[in-house]
């Protein structure tokens, strides 16, 4: 290249580069959400990803319909990934102040959201007039999003865990699909039979990475009657007989019977991928994991049934409950908060609409009829409506979930600093699932030290 030509190219590149970066800048505007025409714009996250095609279509249809009903409101949907709250991304968004105006979070996120100073007190805005079903919403769920008497979030989903099992694999192993295991000893027996019938199948599968190990440990612990933290929340309480029993059960299945498969260090999607491929006999989870197996991982929902969480001597003494909600970003205008609430009320809290639009979901490849989400209080008006609609439009055999629905175990919430504690407990779970020589006592003791230290740091 001769010199003048070279310079021309360089100059062109410079201009092009700067031009591009300027346009890139201008797409980021921090306006107050209302334009000259008086329209209010709000950004909302947790739009389904493209992989969940029908869910995404439903969401987009909801947005279109909502905007038609409310011509002054513009909803900008943002999809943040398969898991709407991947803890490090969530932390980064909070710390960077880049959350959407109305943002998704787990029930366990309240403390972190408050620490970041990103959430708004929405107490004055939320009532029966802005959210018509508000009085039907389970008060326990409202409590989860309340701190110091102030409400910071709106619950939109609630789950509790049970034993999810594959009926086809049960039949193959000669097990009675209508009489799933009620105790961990029975789970162990069943897992052994399932793995014996097909060597490539894990009779029982369990998480041990990406915080999901700690999450399931917590549920298993609740089934034993144990707790993660002491009553006052200041000390770890899982290094107990119950905690040891949890790990011992897993160790016996993994190395005593070899009925948990050789693939470990699983996290959320890994286990569900295996389950969808027909390689998992049982695991613990909420009924909606079967939805993920079907819609994201291409499994078949007629395979799956859910039973109450087993316990040591009888059914579980308790089960883990959790859920999701939406927070409102600080500094929103009054109009934006109202618009956001209206959207959530429409899409998440109205029987027959949005997530409860069972008529629309029935013909889709998406299970309807699951006893989920347990959003409305028992006996409330909205709960009855939702229940009738669900029964009328169920597209899965309701009996697959009857056992679970008919025997509600006491629900225990997640501990404070849940995600950080789960990260620590992952290593106890991975220890017992990958090391035949792992010492249950040592694993729990190390985890206990770490958690105590974490709690001391947080206070």
């Amino acid at each position, binding site marked *: 290249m001769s010199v003048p030509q070279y310079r021309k190219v360089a100059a062109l590149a410079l201009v092009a580069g700067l031009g591009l970066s300027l346009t890139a800048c201008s797409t980021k505007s921090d306006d107050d959400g209302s334009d000259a025409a008086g329209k209010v714009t709000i950004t909302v996250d947790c739009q389904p990803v493209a992989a969940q095609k029908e869910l995404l279509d439903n969401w987009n249809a909801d947005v279109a319909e909502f905007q038609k009903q409310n011509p002054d409101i513009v909803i900008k949907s943002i999809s943040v990934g398969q898991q709407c709250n991947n*803890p*490090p991304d969530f*932390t*980064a968004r909070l*710390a960077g102040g880049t959350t959407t105006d109305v943002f998704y979070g787990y029930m366990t996120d309240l403390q*972190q959201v*408050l*620490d970041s*100073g990103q959430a708004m007190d929405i107490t004055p805005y939320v009532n029966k007039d802005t959210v018509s079903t508000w009085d039907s919403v389970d008060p326990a769920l409202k409590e989860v999003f309340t701190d110091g008497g102030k409400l910071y979030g709106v619950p939109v989903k609630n789950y509790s865990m049970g034993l999810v099992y594959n009926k086809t694999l049960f039949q193959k192993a000669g097990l009675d699909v209508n009489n799933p295991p009620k105790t961990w000893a029975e789970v162990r027996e069943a897992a052994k039979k399932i793995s014996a019938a097909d060597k*490539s199948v894990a009779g029982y599968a369990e998480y*041990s*990475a*990406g*915080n999901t190990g700690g999450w399931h440990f917590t549920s298993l612990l609740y089934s034993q009657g144990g707790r993660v933290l002491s009553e006052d929340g200041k000390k770890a309480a899982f290094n107990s007989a119950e905690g040891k029993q949890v790990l011992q059960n897993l160790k016996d299945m993994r190395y005593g019977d070899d009925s948990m*498969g*050789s*693939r*470990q*260090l699983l*996290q959320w999607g890994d286990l569900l991928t295996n389950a969808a491929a027909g390689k998992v006999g049982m695991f613990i989870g909420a009924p909606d994991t079967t939805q993920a197996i079907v819609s994201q991982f291409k499994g078949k929902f007629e395979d799956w049934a859910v039973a109450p969480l087993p316990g040591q001597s009888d059914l579980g003494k308790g089960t883990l409950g959790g859920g999701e909600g939406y927070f409102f970003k600080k500094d929103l205008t009054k109009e934006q908060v109202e618009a956001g609430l209206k959207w959530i009320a429409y899409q998440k809290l109205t029987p027959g609409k949005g997530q409860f639009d069972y008529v629309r979901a029935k013909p889709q490849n998406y299970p309807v009829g699951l006893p989920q989400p347990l959003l409305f209080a028992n006996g409330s008006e909205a709960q009855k409506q939702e229940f009738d609609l669900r029964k009328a439009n169920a597209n899965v055999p309701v009996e697959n979930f009857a056992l679970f629905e008919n025997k509600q175990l006491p629900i225990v919430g997640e501990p404070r*600093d849940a*995600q*950080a504690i789960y*990260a620590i407990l*992952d*290593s106890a779970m*991975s*220890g017992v*699932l*990958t*090391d035949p020589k*792992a010492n249950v006592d040592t*694993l729990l003791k*190390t985890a206990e*030290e*770490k958690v105590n*230290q*974490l709690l*001391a*740091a947080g206070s």
Partner: protein
Amino acid sequence: MTAPAPVKAEAGVSPKSRRKIRDNLTGHAFLIGAVLCFALFMWYPMIRGLVMSFQRTRRGVTTWVGWDNYLRIIDDPSFWVAWKNTFYFTGLALIVGFAVPFFVAIVLNEFRHAKGYLRVLVYLPVMLPPASALFLFKYYAYDPSEAGLFNAILTFLHLPTSEWMQSPTMTMPAMVLASTWMNMGGAVLIYLASLQNISGDLYEAAELDGAGIWKRIWHVTIPQTRLILALLAMMQIVATMQLFIEPLILANGAGTQDSATSVAYLIYQHGFFQNDLNGAAALGVIMLVVLAAFSAVYLRLSTKD
């Protein structure tokens, strides 16, 4: 930014010093862009990191807490494990990732055929996005069942199989293997270039003195490439001490029983999982001190003789 800054002529200043001022200003005008970037993203964060490590921020309120963050970080049972793992990885990567490329380069340099092909092959993995290469290892190569590539090969050869990332003892070697495969191309190229600069006369003379191949490598090749070897060793150590993406993807972070936890991952975990940026900053300062001490010792040793 490239236009020479205008200068006001000041009374009582000689033309010569005025010219000098103008030249200085021109020089600084050329520097300003880079200096600002250094100031914002290097010098200021250094100070900020140090300050942060003695503070604590909760609900928007920042307080001074003395050595609390450091004490908490050191008390973390993962702290020493992370250092042990990081040193282990660095050492193993030094043996494998440093010696292997050197010998590959020596061998390649002897070939008169297929040299270009081999060079491209070695460099090819460097071109993959790191996440691509690591998912390949994670899902296919290191699958702990016998459906995994490595285990299938081992079974085929009637060798014992391994659980790879699930085995606390294999975690580190497996990460070193993946990391070396991914990254050795760059080092091989640099060695090849420096090997080509060795004068043939030196080998000729050594051969006449009766030196065999190994003796020639020891007495000619290594001394002649010593500077580049020392430089690359240093760079590699600093790079491997920051081990992060390998544990994150291959071992889902901590691996089994903390067998993959590295210091860098611990920084990430404190900062972004445990919502403890101050603790993470303290750990960063500790890492800096360790690396600085190491560099000082290394420089001292390598300049001594």
